[in-house]
């Protein structure tokens, strides 16, 4: 495939060579096997279903969702929160690669960065899906709109998320472009950005936690542990996704050199999954041992309140998945090659566990009981599921295309 890459002459201007690079990348990215086309067609179809559902939501009002004035955020914001974590989790490849000079990691670190890009795109889409007036989106733009910075944490989030997107686009774009030009990347053009992206990754998730934990009227969120918990679970879900992605990339494309990064990430999850469980346990102890009305959201989440139990199955599923995944990760044999399917299963469990814990298990109980202690339950409507799945499909499309673009780099890491 590398034969497709023309090497432009040394003195060609970036103005002409960069569009060439973009065009070439797109061409390559849309090239593939039947299975690839089938996969993309499937994702497109699902995405279109979601787009249609969203259009209906905008046209008919958000009455089509199951959100209420009591539970005013639902599945969208739940997914948004999780996606921020996924984006931040991508950085878990960058840290070993650039801070500890893990050579093997260095070659594949771009997978983490591309995941971050796809996840942020999904984040932004979830936020837009949640807006009652997406047509007024321009009100959020600094200068032409009215940006309540720095008082509103949401404006911080808008800034850091877009900043993170740009950072990662720059890093990935630069590395791939240099490869296209056949040059060795100049560290001064990307190492500072990589360092910044590490700090930035932490900041996106911290600020997303601040969105919730700064609200005094919501005792369930109003805890200093929220940001650290977010980070810990992000560092489970991000690496878990990357491991699964790498296993598939290896299986499908035969890219080598992925086993050692997989091992490193598994070791990282081993630690972070325990830290996450520890923090959850500490949170639960504080809630339940103290009791009182602050514990009512937790009670609702775990056992139901006044006979209302909509979230109970979700929670216990998450706990079951998280504990099983933790047990599997702690088992040293998991890294053995013949246990690959089990590793993938463990990653999936950790991933889904984190998704529930941070989505339905965190956003919804913040609203139940409501601030007047009404118990209004929330179960996402069909429309919400369609939009959500549509956005996931779009994210996977972005990720697939991004990975395809980077495949030549992954295949011939020796080039730089």
């Amino acid at each position: 495939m590398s034969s497709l890459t023309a090497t432009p002459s040394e003195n060609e201007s970036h103005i002409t060579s960069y569009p060439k690079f973009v065009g070439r990348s797109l061409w390559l990215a849309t090239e593939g096997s039947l299975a690839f086309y089938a996969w993309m067609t499937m994702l497109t179809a699902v995405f279109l279903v979601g787009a249609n559902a969203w259009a209906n939501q905008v046209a008919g009002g958000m009455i089509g969702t199951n959100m209420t004035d009591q539970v005013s955020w639902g599945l969208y914001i739940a997914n948004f929160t999780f996606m921020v974590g996924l984006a931040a989790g991508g950085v878990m490849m960058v840290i070993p690669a650039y801070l500890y000079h893990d050579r093997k990691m260095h070659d594949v670190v771009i997978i983490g960065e591309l995941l971050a890009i796809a996840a942020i795109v999904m984040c932004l889409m979830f936020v837009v899906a949640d807006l009652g007036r997406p047509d007024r989106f321009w009100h959020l733009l600094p200068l032409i709109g009215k940006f309540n910075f720095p008082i509103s944490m949401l404006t911080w989030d808008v800034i850091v998320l877009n900043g993170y997107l740009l950072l990662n686009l720059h890093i990935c774009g630069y590395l791939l472009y240099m490869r296209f030009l056949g040059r060795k990347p100049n560290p001064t053009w990307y190492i500072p950005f990589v360092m910044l992206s590490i700090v930035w990754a932490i900041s996106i998730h911290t600020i997303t936690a601040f969105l919730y934990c700064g609200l005094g009227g919501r005792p369930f969120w109003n805890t200093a542990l929220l940001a650290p918990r977010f980070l810990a679970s992000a560092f489970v879900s991000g690496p878990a996704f990357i491991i699964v992605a790498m296993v598939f990339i290896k299986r499908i494309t035969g890219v080598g050199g992925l086993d050692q990064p997989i091992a490193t990430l598994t070791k990282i999850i081993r630690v972070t999954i325990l830290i996450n469980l520890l923090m959850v346990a500490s949170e639960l102890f504080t809630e339940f041992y103290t009791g009182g009305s602050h514990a009512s959201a937790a009670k609702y989440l775990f056992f139901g309140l006044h006979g209302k139990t909509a979230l109970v199955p979700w929670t216990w599923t998450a706990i079951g998945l998280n504990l099983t995944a933790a047990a599997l990760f702690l088992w040293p044999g998991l890294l053995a090659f013949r246990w690959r399917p089990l590793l993938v299963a463990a990653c999936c469990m950790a991933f889904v566990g984190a998704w529930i814990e941070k989505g339905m298990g965190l956003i919804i109980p913040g609203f139940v009981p409501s601030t007047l202690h009404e118990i209004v339950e929330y179960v996402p409507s069909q429309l919400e599921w369609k939009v959500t799945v549509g956005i996931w499909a779009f994210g996977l499309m972005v990720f697939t295309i991004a990975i395809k673009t980077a495949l030549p780099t992954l295949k011939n890491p020796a080039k730089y």
Partner: protein
Amino acid sequence: MKKLKLRITNLVFATTVFLVVIMTFGLYLKRAERGNPHHDRADVRGLLQVANDDKVESDDKAFAVVVHRPAGPPRVALAGVDPQGRRGEVACSTCHSVRKANLENKTTDTLNEFHEGLVVNHGKLACYACHNPDDSDSLRLADGTNVAYQDVMTLCSQCHGQQATAFAHGAHGGMNGHWDLTRGPQMKNNCVDCHDPHSPSFPSMIVDFKPKDRFNAPAEHDQEGQ
């Protein structure tokens, strides 16, 4: 190794600077916003003080507080109609002027000619604690002073001083119209508009309007929940 250490130190330093700068900036701007006089966020105690030495629009109130008054002494409808088919009404004194007052009576149970069935549930008061035995078309105070029916509030206020004080300060009895008397009048009820003088406790009511929160018609809520 040295390079690695240097890099980590750099990174830690950069993080700290980043955090300190954004935090300071954020806090500063938040302060600035809070200090903005436009926002008028002084607490109540502060406001009370300000207002005390700075009398605001307490004078030249152009409009009055109008307390509703009863039309006059009650008139009693006669049973039946006269040959011309007209209904008649008489004053209390029509009967009571020819009857001896029983100053002890406290209940309608003892009555067999008139007022039967009237529910009296007003402390241990006798009828003539408030009605005037000497002039049945008016009321009387505890000290014997005559009070017109229109001024019934004076009578009630003898015992219900707390409510009377609150009423005088707009904290009892409700009102309609204007809070700002420079712009329009204010109308207020009198005691017997809301309280039946013979059985003054406020009647029980039926709740007939309930918001239906989306998807949650009241019927779906479990009352036993609590």
